[in-house]
């Protein structure tokens, strides 16, 4: 067995969240360069404020502004920062007890080396230049020198609207591997072949091969080369534009049951007006020029009518 195919894959999206009344107070404060905590039932001040009291489970209603200077409670050294962290050079994460708060808060501390940080050291907020009501409005923390100019960090007045939501971009990178069966399928495509696999128990032919027969739960091992002709079992006409769409609607996306296969593959139907496509229509694969082939289903542009008579419904009724 040759090694599976792999490809880099990036998953990127935004989480858009509403924040509720408690976090709104905290995040609005950040935007306005203020640190707002909440008073817990036992009298302690928590920064950030939890939405509900950890003991009484009642919503927090009393809010308290705390100092922007605090004390490091614990820290760890980040020798190899990962993307998205507040600093792209080695730094420390620290739990910091801000003056007037009773619960430590996590943020990044900008110091040149692990030798420059110790538990108990005094640090202060470094505000981001542009703030929108998110935790990264605090760019990071920095050592608070004894002779610090406190006036320099006087809070800005905040009379803007309360923050009601945040957007958190997520950007994940993977090395995505195909299964060995899928790899066989994609390598076949690179040679202009369509390769499925047969279940040793029920003898159904799956294309693309799946690694296990979903009916019997046994590994599929016998390769089966399939012809490039098949039958449209069902289809839909895409009329709705969407992000990332590569062709202009309307177009037809169909399930094509290759001759000899037991499961249909999804692809485009070409060379025929959308309103003339029908269940049972006989079609053949339209391959791109050979020099453009790779280990991808995109080697096939789509399927076009062969002109043969339509297949009987009974011939594909079990494959819908």
């Amino acid at each position, binding site marked *: 067995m040759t090694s599976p195919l792999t490809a880099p894959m990036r998953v990127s999206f935004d989480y858009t969240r509403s924040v509720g009344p408690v976090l709104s107070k905290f995040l609005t404060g950040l935007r306005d360069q203020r640190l707002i905590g909440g008073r817990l039932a036992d009298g302690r001040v928590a920064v*950030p404020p939890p939405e509900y009291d950890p003991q009484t489970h009642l919503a927090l209603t009393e809010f308290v502004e705390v100092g922007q200077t605090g004390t490091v409670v614990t820290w760890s050294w980040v020798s190899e920062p990962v993307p998205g962290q507040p600093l792209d050079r080695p730094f420390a994460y620290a739990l910091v007890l801000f003056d007037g708060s009773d619960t430590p808060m996590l943020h990044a501390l900008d110091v040149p080396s692990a030798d420059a940080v110790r538990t108990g050291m005094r640090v202060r907020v470094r505000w981001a230049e542009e703030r929108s009501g998110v935790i990264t409005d605090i760019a990071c923390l920095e050592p608070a020198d004894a002779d610090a100019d406190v006036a320099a960090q006087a809070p800005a007045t905040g009379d803007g609207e309360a923050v009601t939501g945040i957007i958190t971009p997520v950007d*994940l990178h993977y090395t995505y591997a195909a299964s060995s069966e899928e790899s066989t399928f994609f390598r076949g495509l690179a040679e202009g072949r369509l390769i499925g696999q047969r279940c040793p128990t029920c003898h159904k032919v799956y294309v693309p091969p799946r*690694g296990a027969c979903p009916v019997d739960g046994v590994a599929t091992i016998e390769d089966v080369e399939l012809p490039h002709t098949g039958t449209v079992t069902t289809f839909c006409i895409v009329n709705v534009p969407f992000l990332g769409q590569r062709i202009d609607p309307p177009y037809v996306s169909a399930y094509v049951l290759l001759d000899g296969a037991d499961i249909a593959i999804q692809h485009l139907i070409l060379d025929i007006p959308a309103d003339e496509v029908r269940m049972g229509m006989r079609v053949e694969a339209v391959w791109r020029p050979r020099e453009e082939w790779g280990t991808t289903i995109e080697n096939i542009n789509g399927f076009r009518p062969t002109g043969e008579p339509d297949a009987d419904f009974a011939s594909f009724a079990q494959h819908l």
Partner: protein
Amino acid sequence: MRDVAVVGFAQRQMDVFPGSPTMVELLVPLFAECYEQTGWTRSDIDFWCSGSSDYLAGRSFSFVQAVDAIGALPPVNESHVEMDAAWALYEAWVKIQTGEVDTALVYGFGKSSAGLLRRVLALQLDPYTLTPLWPDTVSLAGLQARLGIEAGLWDEKAMAEVVARSLTDAEGREYPIRSGATTAAELLAAPLYADPLRKHDCAPVTDGAAAIVLAAGDKARDVCERPAWITGIAHNVDSLHLGGRELTTSASATRAAAAVGSLDGVEIAELHAPFSHQELILREALGLGADVRISPSGGALTGNPMFSAGLIRIGEAASSIIRGEAGRTLGHATSGPLLQQNLVTVMEA
């Protein structure tokens, strides 16, 4: 309460699983092992429950794809948790208690190596005040370790001793991906990676999967000479806010253990501690005495496949009963950041 026992267990652990993150190819042989141990086929399994995460796989509904490994025609009774599969085992145990089913196969799988694991796991944190800072799991563990060190609760030597025992225990075993007899002194000579942690204090990034078969009453006795009867199982959770709980203890582990009942007479405790100092926290939180053998399998520091490492702890603890090596054992699983969620199960011959 119905008597429920572990009657089958299979696992795989590796540095890098070469196939797709749905892991169908890995689950098929694992299930086959479970069938062989019990003499059952899939039609004897009343309920299936899995633990996995799409964030790890980098694709949506990866657990649905994994159902291919069962063979789901006719349809199967199936469920899933986005947690370590130890919690899937809890769900299956509850399902058996309802009387609706008598047998269950629980499985977990995860290809941790597909992405940058310590970064991906930032997505399990509080989404408003933590995830946007992308705190990686190793850095968070460092904060916790230092708190204990500076409070005098443990020191780097005690942490190294945990690692040395784990690596020594793992030597010659089939599944751990890190092993080799060593000493605390040798380990302490290694450089710091995430001060105060050395790399060996952190569980290795591990791909893998595991499966456990549960059965009630006579069904368990029919297929296993010495079933590992679950005499107590409970789980508990601490605040998502790191500043809102005492990080040098594990209140949720203590509460889970209290719900299970007495831990007296436990001979072996398989603890799911992905960082060396977390084993020290757990031993204290669970009140385990010096006479309890901790994680003879090598534990999570020698192999920590995400979403099955906790289930593997239960499987290892059960196996020592099934093999006749112990009469009363404990399996523990953790999930979430810094021991936020803990599950404790006690099993007896």
